[in-house]
């Protein structure tokens, strides 16, 4: 295969037309990023930030309103259904509501093997072999393939969903909230499984989650999405140790109370020359980009305060604006 990125977003916007109110909904706003082999990408953001739309666009279920999506360097803007089908073979998707994606009336064999029916005409024996193999890979016994979805626990259903994603032998797996429906004590089991599979099967992930802890151990790069646009992007460990955008800081502080008052880190920007309140992403370090636009922080938002108590509303806003002013006067 080529060295082209598995999937590229090139200035992708998705706009949904609405009748009432007559304001178009911008789900994705000029999004550009690549997923290259072996460098998994995490996308974190709230509900409504456009996370799931990214999955749909990458899989060709939603066409971009503008911009291009490329698979292996091929522009998919005018791709035929056949081209998409071939592309999806290499780009699998694990859904959020996993139990709902299994047919309750059929043994799990049918659901896990279903993707294969789109490629050729496998015999029953071939299907059973393929399903048995992927079930073993995810730590389930192949003898369980004749059971029904309700006979599995939440963690096992998630393993089955991963098995179904693997059955066509993909290189890239899109994980949309892969553990959010699971109990805390089960999440680590599934995250470790995903990390093992990435190593043993040479998989690359695009991990989408509202919980920053989920992509942390699976990815090398993180994008923070707010309102359809990227507000910060950084290598994963950099994002967790030196988050800059106030939105990122608050996301991380809620996830990890010990993170403390990281909002002060934005002050570091003052030391850099030439940064003003520009529009769009500004590079602050190699691979670390931050959106410098003024950012409205809702009332009651705590900024980076730890559990010891929440700071008064709007503290984060002030900090951010103060920095903007200082950078403005310095330059």
């Amino acid at each position, binding site marked *: 295969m080529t060295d082209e990125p598995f999937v590229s977003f090139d200035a992708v916007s998705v706009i949904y037309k609405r009748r009432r109110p007559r304001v178009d909904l911008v789900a994705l706003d000029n999004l550009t990023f690549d997923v290259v082999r072996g460098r998994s990408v995490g996308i974190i953001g*709230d*509900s*409504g930030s456009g996370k799931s739309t990214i999955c749909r666009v990458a899989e060709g279920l939603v066409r971009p309103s503008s911009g291009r999506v490329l698979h292996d360097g091929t522009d998919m803007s005018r791709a035929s259904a056949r081209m998409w089908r071939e592309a999806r073979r290499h780009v699998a998707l694990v859904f959020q509501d996993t139990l709902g994606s299994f047919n309750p009336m059929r043994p799990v064999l049918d659901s896990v093997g279903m993707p294969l029916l789109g490629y050729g005409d496998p015999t029953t024996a071939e299907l059973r072999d393929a399903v048995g193999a992927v079930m073993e890979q995810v730590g389930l016994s192949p003898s369980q393939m004749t059971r029904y979805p309700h006979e599995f*626990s*939440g*963690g096992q259903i998630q393993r089955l969903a991963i098995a179904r994603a693997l059955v066509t032998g993909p290189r890239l797996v899109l994980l949309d909230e892969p553990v959010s429906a699971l*109990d*805390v*004590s*089960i*999440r*680590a*089991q599934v*995250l*470790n499984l995903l*990390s093992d599979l990435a190593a043993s099967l040479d998989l690359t992930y695009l991990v989408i989650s*509202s919980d920053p*802890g989920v992509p*942390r*151990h699976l990815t090398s790069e993180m994008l923070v999405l707010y309102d359809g646009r990227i507000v910060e992007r950084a290598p994963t460990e950099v994002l967790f140790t030196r988050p800059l955008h106030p939105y990122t800081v*608050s*996301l991380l502080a*809620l*996830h*990890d*109370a010990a993170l403390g008052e990281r909002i002060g880190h934005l002050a570091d920007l003052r030391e850099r020359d030439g940064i003003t309140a520009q529009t769009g992403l500004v590079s602050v370090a190699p691979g670390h980009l931050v959106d410098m636009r003024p950012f409205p922080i*809702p*009332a*009651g*938002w*705590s900024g980076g305060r730890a*559990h010891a*108590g*929440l700071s008064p*509303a709007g503290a984060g806003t002030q900090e951010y604006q103060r920095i903007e002013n200082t950078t403005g006067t310095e330059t």
Partner: protein
Amino acid sequence: MNARPDVPAPDEPAGVTTTGPLLEMSGLTVRFSSPAGEVHAVEDVSISIARNEAVGIVGESGSGKTVTCMSMMWLLPSPPARYVSGRINFDGEALPRTDERRIRRVRGAGIGMVFQNARLSFDPAYRLGSQIAEALRVHGAGRWGDVEGRVLETLRYCNIADPESVLRQFPHEVSGGVAQRVSIALALLIRPKLLIADEPTTALDLLSQLEVLSLLERVRREMSSSLVLVSHDLNVVRRIADRVIIMYAGRVVEEGPVEDIFAHPQHPYTQGLLASAAQRTERGRLYELPGQPPDLAALPPGCSFRPRCARAFARCNHMPPLYATAPGRHCRCFLLDPRGADD
């Protein structure tokens, strides 16, 4: 804005401040029958909540945390629930399950509740305003004209910017975060002595979670009511609670002051849960708690956590009692037996 009409809160018979715990639940056992057998949802749970205290109840799905807090005001219909045993004292008085009239009085006025999916706790066919008005009328707060000012003020207190228009909206027209804040406002309007919040942030996005959490914290500080916060999310509980109760398979397995528990968890389950939640890594792998959550219809004999416990030993074939391990701390594990683990 017109002056706030001076409506006496329904439950302030001035001067009657009793000491002792606000709510005392003892020996609660709740079971459900299912085709797979009898489900032991809650077994012998005793919880005491002091005045002005914030208690967090933590557990995974099936740990019995919701059944426990629903039972604090006998909210579960029976059948299907079977109350095997359990007594509740609220505000110094016994609250028998059969005393419908007193229970009705305590619900709302004495104990308010905020549910996980606030939108579902409203009737979809009525505007939010009329549902608030009805609740206030039932609790004797007065007619709408008298209380309107207080309603608007409380909604604003709960960070609802435009309360007049929210009151005219139907539940489906507001966001989950707004619905949750309206339901907190409703609970506050009746001024309960105890507010129970069952997973109040779980269904919300992170921004709304932060808003609801800071609101709950403010409510507790300013209204001097007690708070029971039920959650599977340790960070949420840590943020708000003074004391935390950890439940596993329908039983209390550990309880103590929140910072103590986080700093020195004693029960192997609590230790595992904290390590999983903190995403502690060992040689690049996340710490994982082995095994599956228990099947409440077929619990193993002895300690329910035994099948997943790395430190289980012969004695764990019996159910350990809840040992008092330090001032204010309890732990249900033979390893904490003050007379020695290998008895």
